[in-house]
């Protein structure tokens, strides 16, 4: 018998006796024989030590980011991981509990969600934030559907900056097709920024920009919000590198109607793509159109402060066919990771961390700009945070491959999914990239020129 099954053979016999049954098979009599098998086609089970060794061997076939100087970003970032984060995540009171539908025995989870919502509000400049969404890509889908609902379904077009992450755009295209929304993609100008003048459309329910953008460029958010509102559309900011919010103001401060994106940077491992942490924030007046779970403060029968899920009637288990969304389960454990990470750093720590990323990125930018040999910045005049686009002696694919052969994960080929921007390398720098990493990359680039 297996240790994860609670009743042994004797136990099972006793329980069957109590039920007056002579065999377990009797309990399954309602399943037609035609659909049953004696044994599914899987190998026999194994003990813990064997399984762990085997999986460690599989893991060893991968090249980890920490094993090389790595500058891969493009929406998934490597940041420091204080030990307290995993220590808290490993507490079974958190990771083996479920959605806090019974608030009396879930105050821990509920207060964490409330703190997470507050932190997201503080950073995005918005009034309300939900308990999290699947990931950055689906948060953009949710933001667009939100805007469509706020305008009562009267406008079916979406103006989408091309510099919104291509993976997010491809996911949005899947859902837009399903619900009948038209996507109009607006390419960036030659300076890498999205021209607010091209974001006016009386048919659009929303204007969606990412800042810092896929190519790392910080957009002119106040002008973009103004352009969107001039034609009656909602303004949506996508944030893929949440650490940028340590020094850049969130769109809420400039009148953006929704700020959404990916908060993997806050203490969540890159993990080959997931689980990550989508977030969503908006103005309080539109809270009833907001997707996802929400924790609120209230009191218990003794009048003491307590928390519970609220406005649940927007959700599918009550609203059924009229729910605001069905892709909005939260990522509770990831939201916990982000909350612990942010609180461990503190307000000053987050700012200092963001400044550290900025300083390292700009140091690298400066050195690449002076490198010669075919290397140059794609957008030398554009404001950037910790990521920027570089052109070199060859296409992005070739550059990435040759630099990897030279021992450096130099960045993402920028035209992997097409795009009107130059074909080069998208380079991200975080506090994990020490000066020695920068030296290694610059040296390898020099060898290529």
């Amino acid at each position, binding site marked *: 018998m297996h240790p994860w099954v609670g009743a042994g053979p004797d136990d099972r016999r006793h329980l069957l006796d109590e039920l007056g049954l002579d065999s377990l098979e009797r309990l399954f009599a309602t399943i037609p024989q035609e659909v049953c098998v004696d044994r599914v086609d899987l190998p026999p089970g194994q003990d813990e030590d064997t399984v762990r060794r085997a999986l460690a061997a599989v893991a060893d076939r991968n090249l980890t980011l920490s094993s090389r100087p790595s500058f891969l970003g493009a929406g998934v970032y490597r940041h420091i991981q204080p030990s307290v984060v995993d220590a808290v995540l490993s507490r079974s009171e958190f990771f083996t509990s479920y959605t806090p539908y019974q608030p009396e025995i879930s105050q821990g989870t509920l207060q964490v969600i409330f703190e997470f919502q507050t932190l997201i509000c503080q950073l995005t400049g918005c009034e309300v934030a939900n308990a999290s969404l699947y990931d950055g890509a689906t948060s953009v889908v949710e933001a667009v559907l939100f805007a469509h609902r706020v305008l009562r379904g009267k406008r079916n077009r979406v103006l989408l900056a091309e510099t919104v992450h291509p993976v997010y755009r491809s996911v949005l295209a899947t859902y837009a097709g399903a619900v009948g929304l038209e996507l109009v993609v607006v390419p960036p100008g030659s300076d890498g920024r999205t021209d607010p003048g091209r974001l006016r459309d009386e048919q659009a329910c929303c204007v969606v920009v990412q800042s810092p953008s896929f190519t790392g460029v910080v957009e002119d958010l106040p002008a973009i919000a103004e352009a969107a509102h001039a034609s009656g559309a909602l303004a949506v900011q996508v944030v893929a590198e949440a650490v940028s919010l340590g020094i850049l103001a969130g769109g809420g401060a400039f009148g953006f109607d929704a700020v959404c994106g990916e908060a993997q940077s806050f203490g969540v491992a890159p993990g080959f793509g997931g689980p990550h942490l989508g977030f969503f924030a908006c103005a309080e007046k539109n809270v*009833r159109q907001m997707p996802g779970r929400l924790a609120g403060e209230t009191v218990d029968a003794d009048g003491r402060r307590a928390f519970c899920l609220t406005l*649940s*009637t927007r959700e599918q288990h*009550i*609203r059924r066919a*009229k729910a605001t969304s069905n892709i909005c389960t939260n990522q509770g454990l990831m939201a916990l990771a982000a909350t612990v990470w942010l609180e461990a750093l503190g307000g000053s720590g987050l700012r200092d961390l963001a400044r550290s990323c900025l300083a390292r990125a700009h140091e690298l930018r400066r050195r690449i700009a002076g490198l010669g040999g075919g290397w140059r910045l794609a957008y030398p005049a554009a404001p950037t945070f910790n990521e920027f686009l570089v052109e070199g002696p060859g296409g992005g694919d070739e550059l990435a491959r040759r630099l990897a052969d030279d021992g450096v994960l130099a960045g993402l080929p920028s035209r992997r999914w097409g795009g009107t921007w130059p074909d080069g390398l998208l380079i991200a720098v975080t506090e994990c990239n020490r000066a020695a990493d920068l030296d290694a990359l610059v040296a390898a680039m020099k060898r290529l020129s």
Partner: protein
Amino acid sequence: MSVPNDLSYTRSHEWARVEGDLVVVGITHYAQDQLGEVVYVELPEVGLGANAGEELGTLESVKAVAEFLSPVAGEVVEVNERLAEEPNLVNEDPYGDGWLVKISGALEEDELLDAEAYKELLAEESH
């Protein structure tokens, strides 16, 4: 369950009362009791035209959402603005301060239930 004699009722538990040229609409004592404490009322925009039986808005409690339907054909001329801040009025005074909308239109008595018929409906539903 209170069922005032001077009102007309629908099978979906709205009431209607003639007030001059207008018809005042709310939900019944029974309906608010079934729904539980109302936390939010979504009211239509003034000017909305509706046929009898069409959805005008929704009422939310903590655990449920209910639509309310128009008992008559006509145009919404006024909504109860107080409910934005005091949704509990629907529970506390469903036939008075907890009214929902006023509609310009005439009551078609044949289509609606009188108090006796509505009481019978409630008796059936409680079985």
